[in-house]
């Protein structure tokens, strides 16, 4: 407890002192637009790009999970596909990706003649090696579940097999994938780094030497092993099989997670970093300072913040009750009051970063606070004034202010007795999954690969409840236990649809059903991201789908 307090004090101090310091910089007012994403200057090779991240869990693709690990792994490895900032997929090492009629088998044609940075060939066998290695039992990989549709995954996971039954390489440039669970959008998954190819030298996932210095086939390679909690240095891979990078080096400093955004911003101000996040309190000043210089980025990213009502138990069992809650919340007031406009109101579950699937306003109750409608729906649902409503959230994540605001609004509009419960993150995640959970929880989600299905399926499909038969706790990510057979059927129909436009339409129907009609989740705010970037020095510097700088394209001005 004392530590948490200390950290909070540090944050307060940081804010105060920096605010004072920043004033002396002379903050000019004025809006910050987005710098032009691409300026077509002739790319000049060379230069060292510097940025800070927090210590990743892993940079070896078998267990890469968070944005920081992905930043490193995606520059060290190139897989079958890549995804642009709008969630559009394109071929990377794949030359074609073709499903059979019922999407139970996928054939990937791979570009021939490319190599790993140690000279070994990147062929179909390299992909099979990488996927098998990640799915193996001793890997205990946190991300191997993305491979779960492939035939033979279960046997690898429980250790009864050592080869991946569903994978075959008829020749060096053909990879055939047999799926146990049919999926017409399987190719989207291959964007995830767990689908990376690895050279024979990688060995098993438990190979510590490779974990710290992976040899890959990406635009960059490691200069030396990962210096834990200190730095990771990448250098250009001159034998890269696709368009080569321009930067000579990328120096990644590893920062303390408690105040990384603070350190990144200070580093940027001191000219030590070329790309940085900022503490929330610093955003207005940073925008005023760097916006006019075109060094400011602000966008709604792949992710969503929402309330997760418990739908099988307690006061929010009926959809009317959940809608009443949603109508009673004044999102606009919280956006301007708490977030100073640096987050936006959400009216969907699938974020605007999914350009084609995004359907603004699909959550009708999210668009505008409507006290009368809220009261009427609450009366209908028996959500009478004085009803106890549990509201769980995790402390230490900067959620306190808006959680308080939401609770106050529910109290004012509906007269509910909102019981706020701020607890540590892991405890929250455990509590919301118990069979006795009730009320609602603060939650957020981001997609691993660019399909609306990666929001809808893990969060809302009946299969994602995956109740443990012994303890009756939820083992999946659908902790609210929303279950609607019609919704499940739509998701199944979507993954069985080959035509992308048609599939997107089905996903939209599904989102309308679960969010618009059933209010299975209550969207609140977008996942908004802000960065300052040294665009004075670097050309083609922008952000990617994973919120990281596009290092492979950056060049000196």
């Amino acid at each position: 407890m004392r530590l948490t307090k200390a950290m909070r004090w540090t944050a307060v101090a940081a804010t105060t002192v920096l605010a004072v310091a920043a004033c002396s910089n002379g903050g000019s007012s004025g809006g910050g637009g987005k710098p032009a994403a691409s300026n077509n200057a002739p790319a000049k090779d060379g230069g060292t790009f510097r940025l800070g991240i927090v210590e990743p869990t892993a940079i070896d693709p078998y267990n890469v999970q968070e944005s920081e690990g992905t930043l490193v792994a995606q520059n060290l490895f190139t897989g079958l596909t890549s995804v642009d900032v709008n969630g559009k997929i394109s071929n990377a090492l794949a030359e074609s990706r073709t499903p059979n009629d019922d999407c139970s088998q996928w054939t990937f044609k791979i570009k021939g003649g490319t190599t790993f940075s140690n000279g070994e060939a990147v062929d179909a066998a390299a992909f099979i090696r990488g996927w098998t290695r990640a799915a193996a039992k001793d890997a205990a990989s946190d991300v191997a579940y993305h491979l779960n549709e492939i035939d033979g995954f279960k046997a690898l996971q429980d250790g009864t097999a050592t080869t991946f039954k569903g994978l075959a390489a008829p020749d060096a440039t053909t990879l055939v994938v047999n799926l146990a669970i049919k999926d017409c959008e399987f190719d989207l998954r291959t964007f995830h780094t767990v689908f990376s190819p690895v050279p024979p030298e990688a060995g098993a996932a438990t190979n510590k030497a490779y974990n710290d210095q992976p040899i890959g086939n990406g635009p960059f390679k490691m200069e030396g092993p990962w210096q834990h909690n200190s730095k990771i240095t990448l250098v250009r891979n001159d034998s890269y099989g696709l368009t080569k990078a321009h930067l000579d080096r990328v120096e990644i400093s590893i920062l303390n997670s408690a105040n990384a955004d603070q350190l990144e911003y200070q580093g940027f101000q001191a000219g030590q970093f070329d790309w940085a996040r900022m503490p929330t309190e610093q955003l207005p000043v940073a925008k005023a300072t760097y916006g006019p210089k075109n060094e400011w980025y602000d966008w709604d990213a792949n992710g969503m913040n929402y309330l997760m009502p418990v739908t099988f138990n307690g006061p929010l069992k009926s959809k009317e009750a959940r809608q009443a809650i949603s109508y009673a919340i004044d999102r606009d007031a919280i956006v301007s009051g708490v977030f100073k406009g640096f987050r936006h109101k959400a009216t969907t579950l699938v974020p605007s970063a999914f350009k084609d699937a995004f359907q603004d306003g699909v959550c009708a109750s999210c668009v505008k606070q409507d006290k009368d409608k809220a009261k009427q729906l609450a009366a209908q649902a028996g959500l009478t004034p004085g009803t106890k409503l549990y509201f769980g959230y995790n402390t230490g994540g900067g959620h306190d202010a808006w959680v308080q605001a939401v609770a106050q609004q529910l109290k004012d509009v509906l007269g509910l007795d909102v019981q706020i419960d701020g607890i540590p993150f892991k405890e929250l995640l455990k509590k919301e999954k118990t069979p006795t959970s009730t009320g609602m929880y603060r939650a957020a989600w981001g997609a691993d690969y660019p399909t609306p299905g990666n929001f809808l399926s893990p969060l809302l499909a009946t299969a994602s409840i995956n109740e443990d038969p012994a303890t009756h706790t939820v083992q999946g990510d659908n902790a609210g236990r929303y279950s609607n057979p019609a919704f499940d059927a739509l998701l199944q129909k979507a993954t069985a649809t080959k035509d992308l436009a048609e599939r997107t339409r089905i996903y939209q129907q599904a989102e309308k059903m679960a969010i618009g009609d059933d209010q299975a989740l209550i969207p609140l705010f977008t996942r908004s991201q802000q960065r300052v970037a040294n665009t004075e020095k670097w050309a083609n510097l922008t952000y990617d789908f994973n919120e990281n700088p596009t290092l492979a394209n950056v060049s000196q001005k």
Partner: protein
Amino acid sequence: MGRYLLRRLGQMIVVLLGATLILFACLFVIPGDPVGSLAGSERSRDPAVVEQLHKRYGLDKPLIVQYGTYVNKLVHGDMGEDYTQRRPVAEILGPKLVNTSKLAIAAIVFDAVIGAGVGALAALKRYSLWDTVVTLITTILVGFPTFVIGMLMLNLFAVQLKWVPVIGDPSDPVQVVLPAITLAIIDAALVARLMRGTMLEVLRADYVKTAIAKGVPRRQVLLKHVMRNSVIPVVTYIGISFGSLLGGAIITETIFNWDGIGMAMSTAIQQQNNPIVVGVATWGVAIFVLLNLVVDLLYAMLDPRIRLS
């Protein structure tokens, strides 16, 4: 002396065992499964992976069995493996201990030299301008929180003047200066006040008057009689202070991104990365007990009237 040392070391083992047991019990009654979700993420772990990790870390066994296994491994020099990166705890904490020690030693040297020096001078020139200024400054400094000093220094010297990088490199000796001063400055103020106080008292003592009356040169009086007797409380204070510094200075390490064990501890607590928490805490207890012993031994050296038995 030898028997005394042996007894103290024996007590130390008992203290360590007790401390780790209490820690263990505390950590494992915290609700929430430490390996139930991905590090810092909302995502649940695959149940198969959770089960495997439970086995791997012995989390499926009763608490007392886990503790037994831990102690047994610890005796053999194995501190286990952490939950997120799955690397050996000793390998993770090793370089951090070195960094924390560098910072602690630099800070304590600053403490002792500046603090005791300034305090002694103030006592000798009592009620002079120097004494007044020292009293004033130390009074203000004692009331300052560490983070204010740290943030001010970082902003001035790294962000504005750019004399040192914001993101430091603990292997560069120049860069230890700012965090060490941050860490030491408040302590040094305390040491100065302590030194001034005790020294004034000693200066009034009969044996000092006698020595002066006997015609012993002033230099000798000061060094042999006054100094030696004034530093005893200061040594106690610095010894205890050094112990807590070696346990990791969370705030200073955080502000300067100094990769020490204080920072490791705060991150590990947030992630419920229990092997790291237990490892750091055990180290903290061990070093504290050890330094207390060193301080007691120093007493005997400084003051022959104190007998160790």
